[in-house]
């Protein structure tokens, strides 16, 4: 019963305390369920097998053969017979036989309070069992399927006697003690009670657990039946699950929570990996930039002289570069102005020149100033050497005063 590769832990009542079997392997015995958790791996799915004394077993003959009908009838029956509300129990049944329209069943009921009490150590630590079964059913499943046997095995300081018919649990009863005297005194009476209930007590043999082999001589003398050891290779699966529905919901909720936790953890890991990747990329980028910076810093001294020569030429540019001459600027502006010589709307106001900036001031209509400004900006003999800017201030009657100014761009050496 492995799920998602996780291990399976069967917790069943031992002769004393609890027996833990991991993945059908070797047994560990612990005195309490508290201590059982130290043996069970964190990811193991727990199946709890209940001792006989924790459940109520009742034999019923019901007038139906359909399983659904049987379940409904059993529900009604339990409501009558159980000493507590049926909603407070987990129950199921074992179908023992059917004749015509009649079925014989063994009902198995576990009170939730009892289950709470048994499982408290597990639940307190968030380890809900995923299945709750009955150990007696497990033992029955290990018995021969073609005969009726009396099985005897110890459960937590008690001895359980069970009649198994065709590999199915037909009746079971715990005895108060495991010593031969008590067993011999209680067993005949219990068998008579069973017979009265309709349980077939004409068993062919006695299957006795090796853990109470000391009872063999006494039983052989009393019952005159062959005695064989009870098989140890118990099947890991028992048919009935007594896990309360609310526990199942709780288990599903925990499972969902666990899955969410795992997904969040995975998302967090991916996020952190991405974050780390981003910062590693940033660090590598920084390193690359530093290398380029260092390279530039290393190269810089080689060009110190040429930079000085360039700076000297830049200083003298207003005196030696034609494009920086005042006359060149005036000439280019004059060329542009001549295009508007017939436009009476455009009037010259003034022109100021400094090596660092020149400004032409004028007055005109908004259209004429726009056209003139565009003409200046498109004059590449000016625009190639100056950053040209045009502004205007509105006056009355659609007229404006305007300025067209230029600031020298860095020198581009001629190709020749």
């Amino acid at each position, binding site marked *: 019963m492995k799920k998602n590769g996780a291990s399976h832990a069967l917790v069943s009542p031992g002769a004393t305390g609890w027996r833990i079997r991991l993945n059908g392997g070797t047994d560990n015995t612990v005195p309490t369920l508290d201590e059982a958790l130290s043996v069970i791996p964190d990811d193991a799915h727990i199946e709890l097998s209940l001792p006989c004394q924790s459940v109520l077993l009742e034999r019923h003959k019901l007038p139906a053969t359909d399983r659904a009908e049987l379940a409904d009838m059993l529900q009604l029956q339990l409501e009558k017979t159980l000493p507590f509300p049926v909603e407070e129990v987990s129950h199921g049944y074992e179908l023992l036989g059917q004749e015509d329209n009649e079925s014989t069943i063994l009902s198995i009921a576990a009170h939730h309070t009892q289950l709470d009490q048994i499982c408290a150590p597990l639940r307190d630590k968030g380890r809900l069992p995923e299945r709750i079964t009955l150990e007696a059913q497990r033992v029955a499943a290990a018995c021969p399927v073609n005969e009726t046997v009396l099985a005897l095995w110890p459960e937590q300081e008690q001895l359980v006697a069970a009649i198994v018919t065709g590999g199915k649990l037909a009746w079971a009863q715990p005895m108060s003690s495991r010593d031969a005297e008590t067993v011999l005194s209680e067993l005949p009476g219990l068998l008579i009670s069973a017979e009265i209930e309709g349980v077939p007590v004409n068993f062919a043999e006695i299957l006795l657990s090796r853990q109470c082999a000391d009872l063999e001589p006494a039983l052989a003398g009393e019952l005159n039946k062959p005695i064989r050891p009870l098989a140890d290779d118990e099947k890991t699966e028992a048919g009935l699950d007594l896990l309360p529905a609310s526990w199942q919901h709780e288990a599903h909720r925990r499972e969902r929570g666990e899955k969410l936790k795992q997904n969040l953890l995975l998302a967090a890991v991916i996020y952190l990996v991405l974050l780390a990747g981003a910062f590693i990329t940033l660090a590598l980028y920084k390193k690359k930039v530093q290398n380029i910076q260092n390279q530039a810093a290393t*190269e810089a001294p080689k060009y110190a002289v*040429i930079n000085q020569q360039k700076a000297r030429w830049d*200083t003298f540019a207003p005196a030696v570069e034609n494009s920086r001459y005042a006359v060149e600027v005036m000439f280019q502006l004059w060329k542009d102005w001549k295009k508007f010589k017939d436009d009476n709307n455009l009037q010259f106001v003034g022109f100021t020149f400094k090596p660092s900036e020149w400004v032409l001031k004028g007055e005109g209509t908004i259209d004429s100033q726009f056209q003139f400004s565009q003409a200046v900006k498109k004059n590449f003999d000016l625009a190639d050497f100056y950053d040209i800017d045009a502004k205007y201030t509105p006056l009355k009657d659609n007229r404006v005063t305007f300025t067209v100014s230029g600031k020298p761009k860095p020198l581009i050496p001629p190709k020749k």
Partner: protein
Amino acid sequence: MIAQMSQREKTLAFLVGGAIAVLLNVFIIKFFMGKYNEYSEIKIKAEGELRGYKILDTERERWAKRDAWLTANLHPMGEEAEMDKSQRDYLKSLAQKNDILIDSVSPGKSTALTSYTAFNTGLECKGGWEQLIGFLSDLQNQKNFTVVDPMDIKVDVNDKTKFKASIRVVKWFAPTAGVKPLGRL
């Protein structure tokens, strides 16, 4: 702890946690992008410098020639009084040649700077636009080392076809020893 919370508390915790996560991410992304942009700017600047060096490498000869040309053609000023006289005469002759009427020429004055010595002469004159262009064209040519700084031209109020110009003509000469650093002329 989460298991013990009510649905309402879980929703509230989810909202608060989500808001904190979003804020944290905004902070991280902002920090990351800020740093990335900062490094990118440094990289662009450094790469620009390297590209500039490569260009300078190809122009090494040109700048050397230009520097040599400046050194060869930038002459010392000589005596200031003589310079003043010759400059005034020169300006008058250029004005006459280009049909420019000089109103006044102020006495010249020299200023010594690290890169050059500047000799400034103030000039008030009047003429047509084309005549002014002709005058300045003769004044400013490469080996003259002459700049106008500043020049202010306005329409003559008495004759709207003419322009009045106020020009400070600055002629540059080779620097003299022990001069003040380069600044305004």
